């Protein structure tokens, strides 16, 4: 057991070191001066600084520079954005939680809707309900998420006027940033009307959450359906039926647990898909998340921001997927490798 743990830990560490090395060398690959790309401070401004802490780095060997780079990373000194001039650490700790928050809402919603529907489809296997759910799900995961987002805006915001279409809270509320997760921050803050603020956040979240949850929901329906069908075909379920248990009893005593166990990791894996879709949808809903921010940085050729943003996103995804992988291994040592979504 601990062997597996150590192996995964090493693997994760190696991957992260490779990523950080890569991001370090990006500063050299990007146009412009590497020092500018690392610090986000223009050379002209650096030379103005009296005690230039950056000067000594350029003369030294790559390895020493990399060491400085890493220690700066851990100190939270990630450089500054060319575009806004703000420290990247502050910017990223502002935008990354916003994306994680949006993806989490959507994951929660998809699981809540997808799993019951998946069970329903599986129980009515080869019946009308099953077929209609399956066809709807094909529509669901074929729809381009950016188009869907535009459609829901046109319908629910502009035609019906039910929901706001931009941001995650009205600018009238001033919520001081503590964690970056707006709901938590509201509870930690000292504003007067917390209930109104929470309502405002919910109203802002509904449309973006719906837009990205649709694809994942349909995928979860399919994953659940397949797993339930496979479980119901196994011999121990057949044996349970043979003992005279009703469908309901079989399902609740044996079916649910055995069908859900193998798909939980698959559900968790949907998080990365959600995060990617969230990154696209953020640009449409002006959600202040990492996608919106990174894409702006790409437009503006803001190299320090691209470097740090890329590192943050890929590190998050790598850590997340590897931890899920590890959890599965630890839970179920027999499993050779993570089974991927079969839909």
């Amino acid at each position, binding site marked *: 057991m601990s062997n597996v743990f150590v192996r995964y830990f090493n693997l994760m560490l190696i991957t992260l070191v490779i990523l950080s090395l890569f991001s370090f060398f990006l500063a050299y690959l990007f146009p412009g001066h590497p020092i500018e790309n690392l610090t986000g401070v223009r050379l002209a401004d650096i030379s103005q600084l009296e005690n230039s802490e950056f000067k000594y780095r350029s003369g030294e060997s790559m390895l020493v520079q990399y060491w400085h780079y890493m220690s700066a990373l851990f100190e939270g000194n990630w450089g500054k954005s060319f*575009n*806004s*001039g703000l420290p990247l650490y502050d910017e990223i700790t502002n935008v990354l939680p916003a994306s994680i928050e949006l993806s989490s809402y959507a994951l929660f919603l998809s699981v809540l809707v997808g799993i019951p529907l998946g069970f329903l489809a599986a129980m009515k296997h080869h019946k009308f309900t099953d077929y209609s759910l399956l066809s709807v799900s094909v529509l669901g995961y074929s729809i381009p998420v950016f188009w869907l987002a535009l459609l829901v805006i046109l319908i629910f915001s502009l035609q019906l*006027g039910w929901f706001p279409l*931009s*941001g995650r809270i009205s*600018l*009238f509320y001033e919520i001081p940033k503590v964690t970056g997760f707006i709901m938590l921050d509201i509870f930690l803050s000292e504003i007067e009307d917390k209930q109104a603020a929470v309502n405002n956040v919910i109203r802002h979240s509904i449309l973006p959450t719906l837009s990205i949850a649709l694809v994942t929901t349909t995928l979860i329906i399919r994953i659940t359906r397949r797993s339930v069908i496979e479980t119901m075909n196994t011999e121990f379920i057949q044996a349970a039926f043979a003992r005279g248990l009703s469908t309901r009893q079989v399902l609740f005593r044996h079916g649910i647990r055995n069908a859900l166990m193998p798909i939980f990791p698959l559900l968790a894996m949907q998080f990365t898909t959600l995060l990617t879709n969230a990154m696209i949808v953020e640009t449409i809903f*002006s959600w202040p998340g990492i996608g919106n921010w990174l894409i702006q940085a790409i437009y503006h050729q803001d190299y320090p921001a691209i470097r740090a943003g890329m590192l943050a996103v890929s590190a998050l995804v790598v850590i997340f997927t590897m931890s899920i992988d590890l959890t599965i291994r630890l839970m179920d040592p027999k499993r050779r490798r993570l089974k991927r979504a079969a839909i």
Partner: protein
Amino acid sequence: MSCEKLIHSENEKDGIIYCSEGSPSNFNPQLDTSGTTVDASSHQIYDRLLDFDPVSGDIAPALATSWLISDDGKTYTFQLRKTVNFHSISTFTPTRTFNADDVLFSFNRWRIPTHPYHDISGGQYPYTDSLGLARLIKDIKRLNGYRVEITLHKRESSFLANLATDFAIIMSAEYAEKLVARNQMELIDHQPVGTGPYKLMDFYPDRYIRYSKHQEYWREIELTNKLIFDITPSSSLRLAKLLTSECDVIALPAHSEVEVIRQQQSLVLNEKPGLNVGFWAFNTSKPPFNNPKVRKALSMAIDRNALIEAIYFDSAIPARNLVPPTSWAYQSDIKTVSYNPIAAKKLLREQGIEEGFSMTIWAMPVERPYNPNALKMAELMQSYLLQVGINVNIVSYDWSTFRNFLTQGLHDSVLIGWSADNGDPDNFYRPLLSCDSIKSGTNRAMWCSKEYDQIINQALQFDDINERIYFYSKANEYLAEKMPILPIAHASQYQAYRKPIKGLVINPYGGIKFGGVKKH
């Protein structure tokens, strides 16, 4: 549309959200002529000695209660207003009210190159540089605490109007001294202190600017508790947010969307012919664009009426001169080039421009009132120029880089324009095409003509409008002949806001004003 369903808490009634089009580069309009910076600072945070009356366009008292002009037109004496309070912000509490020292500080900063604050934030003062104001002013004297005398080297009839523009703001000298002591001089342009109706609370680039009411504002007008600029670069998104009442007021409604706004019961649309011009400037410092005939030929290849229809959706009038018809220097009988691709082709070949010649058109990445969509205009022009055998590459950068490169003269030609800062026609002729304005970065044609400079300087020696008209018509003819720029359109100015907002007026000289605006 049932936007009324949206629930408003008490919180929202006491504030106004203005959806603006971009982030200001700082909060000092002396440093930046871009409308975005002016909107965020000039009328919100600061006051000027003089103001324009937004309706009549006349000069009205502001921080100066009265003024005297000597007979030779060279000496101006201003009587200053008493008991005007500066903002008190978290890092600074004023101990005194506004007086002559603040006027001296604010003017000397851009006027005297050795002033300690001159080189803070770059040391470039594009507006005053382009008008040569620093060279015009001989001296500024403090007669007593509330009296200031300005003497000029020569008579200039547009001087008072210049003091009323968005750029002639008054800053706090006391705050500046504090910052020197703390060695944080650059904060003066980022955490500003002024006398204006709102004080800056918080700025997050590309997201928002928060202001709050200046409790002791000297004018007795209605102010809202919270003023928030929601920075929204896309014009369609601004309109959408106005429809869902996420914005109360929007910047620069797109010309294509004007009809949509008119049809909405819950919205108000104000319209006024704009004091602006959108043009195509050739970089006259680069061959072959230094040849007036080439510039003329290129101009003939473009169908400007079609451009106006496609880009401005007919809410603009075709430009004949630099100045719009609302200005007294406008000349309706001036000869302009008309669309004639065959003649254009012939002229180009005569001047040695062969088939397949390629040039760049730089297109602004942002919407401005004078050109709501420069990229789209450039795409249309690309196809027109292809018909006369010229290949066009469209170039665009983000707005600050774009202007930076333009000042360096990296372009072949550029689609840009100008909005007037005051009603004087000099405000078009001088900043756009005089030799001085090349360095200050408002002369996008990089055009320098001694003859032209002489004409427009002569015009300023007279106070009588009819005499000035004579010189400006000479200037118009000269420009029509030399064609450093091709004027395209004078666009109408629009302002769109929700019904509950009261007191908002279009300021013909750019700059939105939130003093006196309230949500009911």
